[in-house]
C-alpha cells in the first residue's frame, strides 16, 4: 500500500503554537556586591514597597548605590523600556513579588 492509502495511520492537527521555548542560562552572579548598582523593582503588589524600603536601607548602610523602579501593574509584563532601563543602569536587580 502506498502512503496515501495507508489506512493504518490517522492524521490530526497540532493545536499548539508549535513554538519551542528558548532555554536561557542565568546571568553570572557577582561574587560580591562591592561597587555594584542594585536595582529594586516594585511590581506594586501590596507591601512590596515595605520590603524594598527595608532592603534599600540595609544596602545603603553598606555603602551600595540603589535605584528604585516600579512596574505600572503587577498583572502585565514589564514594559520593554523599563526592562531596558534596568538592564543598562543596574548590575543586579531585586524584584519584590509580595505574594
Amino acid at each position, binding site marked *: 500500500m502506498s502512503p496515501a492509502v495507508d489506512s493504518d*495511520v490517522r492524521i490530526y492537527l497540532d493545536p499548539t503554537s508549535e513554538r519551542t521555548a528558548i532555554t536561557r542560562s542565568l546571568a553570572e552572579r557577582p561574587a560580591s556586591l562591592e561597587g555594584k548598582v542594585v536595582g529594586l523593582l516594585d511590581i506594586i503588589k501590596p507591601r512590596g514597597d515595605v520590603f524594598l524600603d527595608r532592603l534599600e536601607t540595609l544596602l545603603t548602610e553598606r555603602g551600595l548605590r540603589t535605584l528604585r523602579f516600579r512596574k505600572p501593574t503587577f498583572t502585565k509584563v514589564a514594559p520593554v523600556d523599563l526592562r531596558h532601563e534596568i538592564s543598562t543602569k543596574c548590575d543586579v536587580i531585586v524584584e519584590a513579588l509580595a505574594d
Partner: protein
Amino acid sequence: MGTPLPEGIVAVVKADCPTCRLVTPVLAELRAAGVPLTVYTQDDPAFPEGLDPVDDSDLDLSVALDLDTVPTLVKVEDGAEVDRIVGWSRPHWEKFTGIEGLGDGLPEMRPGCGSLSVDPAVIERLAARSTGLRSRRLELARLEDEAEAFFERGWTDGLPVVPPTPARVLRMLEGTTRAADEIVASVGPDFADCTVEKAAVNAVMAGCRPEYFPVVLAAVEAACTDEFNMHGLLCTTWFSGPVVIVNGPIATGIGMNSGVNAMGQGNRANATIGRALQLIVRNIGGGRPGEIDRSTLGGPGKYTFCFAEDEANSPWEPLSVERGFPERTSTVTLFAGDGPRGMCDQKSREPESLARSMAWQLDSVWHPKLAMLTDAVLVVSPEHARVFREAGWSKARLRERLLELTTKPLSEISAGAQGCAEGMTIQAGGVKDALGSPVGDGAGGDDVLIPKFFPDGLLIVHAGGKAGLFSAVIGGWARGAIGSVPVTREVKQ
C-alpha cells in the same frame, strides 16, 4: 494539476478493483491497436502488468480529474478532457475508442469500483493536502486511543476533546470568511500568534460547530487585547477566568441559551465557545494550571463560562447597545470574572427593596471591606427584572442606586474595623484607589465615603429562566489599568 494530461486516452485503475482487473486485456487490446493510451494506477504501481502504468498512488491525477469511479477512461485533446466513461460496458468502450469487438469473452458490462480518491480512509488527508493547512501533522496508529493521545500530550482541559482531523478543521474554517493563515491575536502568556487555522483546531477540539466559529474568533480577539489582559488573568492567584457574554442576532442564530440554566451546562454553543477560548489560551498561549496559571483555587468557569443575554424579554437595552454598538449587532463582551454567586430575594416587590438585596450581594465581591478594587456583572433574572420594569426603573437608574448603596464610610470598612484585620488602608496622603488617585477629599477621615464600584465597572445583563426570584453576581478580578477592563467586540462572519 502539475503536469498536463497526456494526449489520447487516459485510463485510471486500481488493482483492488475486480472490474479493473477484468478490463486489463481490453486495455492491452487498445494499446496493441495503436490507441495512444496512458494507464494510471492508484494502488499497486505494477498493475496492470505489461501496460507501463504510471503511479498515481499520491492520487494527484485522480483528485485533479475528480474521479468517483475506477476504471475511468478520459479522452484528452490538446491537453484537455473532452469526454469520459466509467466502469466496463462493451458498447460504451467501443463507441468511446472507435474500435469494434473489444473484450471478447468478457461480460457485456460491469460497474466499476470506488476511486481511492473518494475513499473515506484517505479523503481527509487529501482534503488537507489540497487546501494547504499548515499545522503540524500528528499521526496516530490505528490501535492508539486518540482521546488518550490528546490527554498525554497535555492538549486538553481535563475533559476529552473531539480529535481535530483535517476534515473537521476544514469544516470549521467554513464557518468564517477569514483566511486560514490570518493572525487573530497574540495569545498570552506566551504571546504566540494564533492563526484562524489554529483557532479552528482548538474550536474543533472544544466541540464547536462551524457556525459558532465567528463568536470564538471575536472572543479570542477581545480576550487578547491589552485592556482585557488575558495574560494577567491567566496568571493570577485569584479565581477568575474569561466570561463571554454574547449579544445580538448570532446568539439566537446559533441556538445559544439565555434562558433556563443560562450559565449552566447542557447547551452546546454556550459550553463549547467558552471552552474553545480556554483551549486556545492553554494550547496557543501556553497557559497551564500549575505552570503560569497560579490560581489558588480556580473555579469551574475556567473550563468554560459563556452565555447569551436574553434581549427579547429584557426591560432594558442590551449590554452591547449600552457599550456603544448599534442595535442588532452581534457582539461578545469579555469580563474577567469568577463563578456566579446567587442572590435570593423572594419578598421585594419594590425596586428600592430589591436593589438593596442586590447591593448586599455585590458588597461581598472580594471582601465586604475591600472597595474600588474590582468590577462585577449583575445578571438580573426575568422575575426580578419585572419588578424594575413595572416600577419604570431604567438600567442606568438601577446602576446608580447600586453604586450609592455599595458606597461605605471608611469607618465601616477600614482595616481592623468591625473586628476584622482585612479592609481598606489609609495610605500616606489619604485614601487612594488602586492607581494611587485620591478618594473623597483625600484626607482619609473616618467619614470619607468609599465607593465599592465605578460606574463603568458595574455591568448589568438580563438572563435566566422565567421562574425564580434569584439573580446572580459575577465578581471580577482586579479592575481597570491594574488588571482587566471589560472588552466588547463585534462578531464578524
